[in-house]
């Protein structure tokens, strides 16, 4: 029983990271119907931005507290990921808006390769480790919970609540939803559609940046190829939860994190990805729009 709870906690932690990345896929898909394949690399950029900031802080600033360091690393990751996404949207995706559907998709794959190759060339192809930052662990009736797990879950809750608030309650969120539902009408009402789309990219990227910093803190390594596997998992999470749905992205992320860690615990770890994708396939057969997605048919 302790083992089950232990694996559940691990799964929720991992799932929180997937969920945060998945938000970026789901928001961009929601607003312009584009699958932003380079989003996984935006997350990877976040891990490296945090890593470089970690190295700078440890070598230049003596005796800085761990909490302050984490905050600065997170802020750096947010800034770098957002900046990159903002630029890419402006120069690579926006000019293709209104062209055939595959064009931005192919461009996104291209951008993904550009970024991961750039990091590979400048940072080297090997794993870059950092010494553990947060080491405290708690023992609760035989179950080990680490402080970094608690941090990840808390930060995820805070970020998700903030995003949910922005999207459902503020005028920016309304503009985003209006743009998603009828771009032309939104413009007729004075909404700057291009700007709204830019902001959406930046919001998704900033969450990926946070996820990147958390990932680095949790595993203590960064690799140029980290955009791929976590990116694909997060994308799967977004589809599982129902692409376009914010709560769906979080739910999908948590489910995938749980499936992975529980499957690895009780069955073969080699087949954990097979398990994940099988469950995705089964869900999509019975609910093609994902768990919380809305069905395509709609009276307008």
């Amino acid at each position: 029983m302790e083992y089950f709870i232990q694996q559940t906690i691990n799964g929720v932690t991992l799932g929180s990271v997937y969920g945060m990345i998945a938000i970026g896929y789901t928001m961009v898909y929601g607003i312009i119907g584009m699958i932003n394949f380079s989003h996984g690399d935006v997350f990877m950029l976040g891990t490296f931005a945090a890593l470089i900031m970690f190295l700078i802080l440890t070598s230049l600033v003596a005796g800085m507290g761990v909490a302050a360091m984490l905050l600065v690393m997170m802020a750096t990751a947010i800034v770098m990921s957002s900046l990159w996404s903002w630029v890419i949207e402006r120069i690579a995706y926006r000019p293709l808006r209104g062209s055939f559907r595959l064009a931005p998709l192919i461009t996104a794959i291209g951008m993904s390769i550009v970024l991961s190759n750039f990091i590979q060339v400048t940072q080297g192809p090997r794993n870059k480790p950092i010494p553990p930052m947060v080491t405290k662990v708690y023992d609760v009736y035989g179950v080990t919970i680490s402080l970094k797990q608690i941090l990840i879950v808390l930060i995820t809750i805070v970020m998700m609540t903030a995003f949910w608030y922005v999207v459902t309650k503020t005028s920016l969120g309304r503009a985003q939803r209006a743009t998603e539902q009828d771009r032309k009408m939104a413009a007729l009402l004075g909404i700057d559609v291009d700007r709204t789309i830019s902001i959406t990219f930046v919001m998704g990227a900033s969450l990926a940046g946070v996820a990147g910093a958390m990932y680095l803190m949790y595993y203590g390594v960064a690799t140029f190829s980290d955009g791929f596997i976590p990116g694909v998992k997060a994308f799967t999470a977004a589809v599982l939860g129902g692409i376009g749905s914010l709560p769906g992205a979080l739910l999908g992320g948590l489910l995938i994190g749980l499936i992975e860690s529980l499957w690895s615990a009780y069955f073969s770890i080699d087949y954990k990805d097979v398990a994940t994708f099988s469950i995705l396939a089964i869900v999509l057969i019975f609910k093609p729009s994902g768990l919380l997605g809305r069905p395509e048919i709609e009276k307008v």
Partner: protein
Amino acid sequence: MNAQTPLLKVEGVETYYGAIRALAGVDVEVHRGEIVCLIGANGAGKSTLMMTICGQPQARQGRILFDGEDITRVPTHLIARKRIAQSPEGRRIFPRMTVYENLQMGASLDNQTYFKEDVEKIFTLFPRLKERQAQRGGTLSGGEQQMLSIGRALMARPKLLLLDEPSLGLAPLIVKQIFEAIKLLNQQEGLTVFIVEQNAFAALKLSGRGYVMVNGKVSMEGPSKELLANPEVRAAYLEGGHH
């Protein structure tokens, strides 16, 4: 700008959809405080003119002046910010937003500054919307959507209100109610209205002046009373109609 400058002046406007020319040199003027109507057969280009005024699509030839200022190449959202509001063809209600949120979208320009005060006016005008305020736009009836579309446009505090077939699919009683509301806003607040209608009789009754559009061109114009009496107009748009 002096009072003589028309609020809206459309000069020789040509609009294309790809290679198809939908507007073939249109001239229209709307002055402050007027209600002007535009009638014409299906496919004449009426909706295209309404959308071209808002820059969706932009005119390929000619000029559109609003309050003396050239807006032909201005992006749509900036045209809206000059206070041209449209209730477009097909209503275009945001289907997954509530009635209330749709109205909030209308008030985006002023950042909701006058929202509370203005929404009460809309609810007085269309009490139905008040009852339905928490309902999602996509689930409203056609008539309710039409009211919402007009209400949303009014929330922008427009200087010029463009209405594209507000009577489409509505029961005669509701049409009457909507037209009375437009008349009232025009008389009491001096709202300038440019209205496209299939229901030519009602539109000519409501408006002071009118334009008749045929194949992307204005074929006739004049005071609505004269158009109502004109035998050609009567034959093409009124006979067998609603009077």
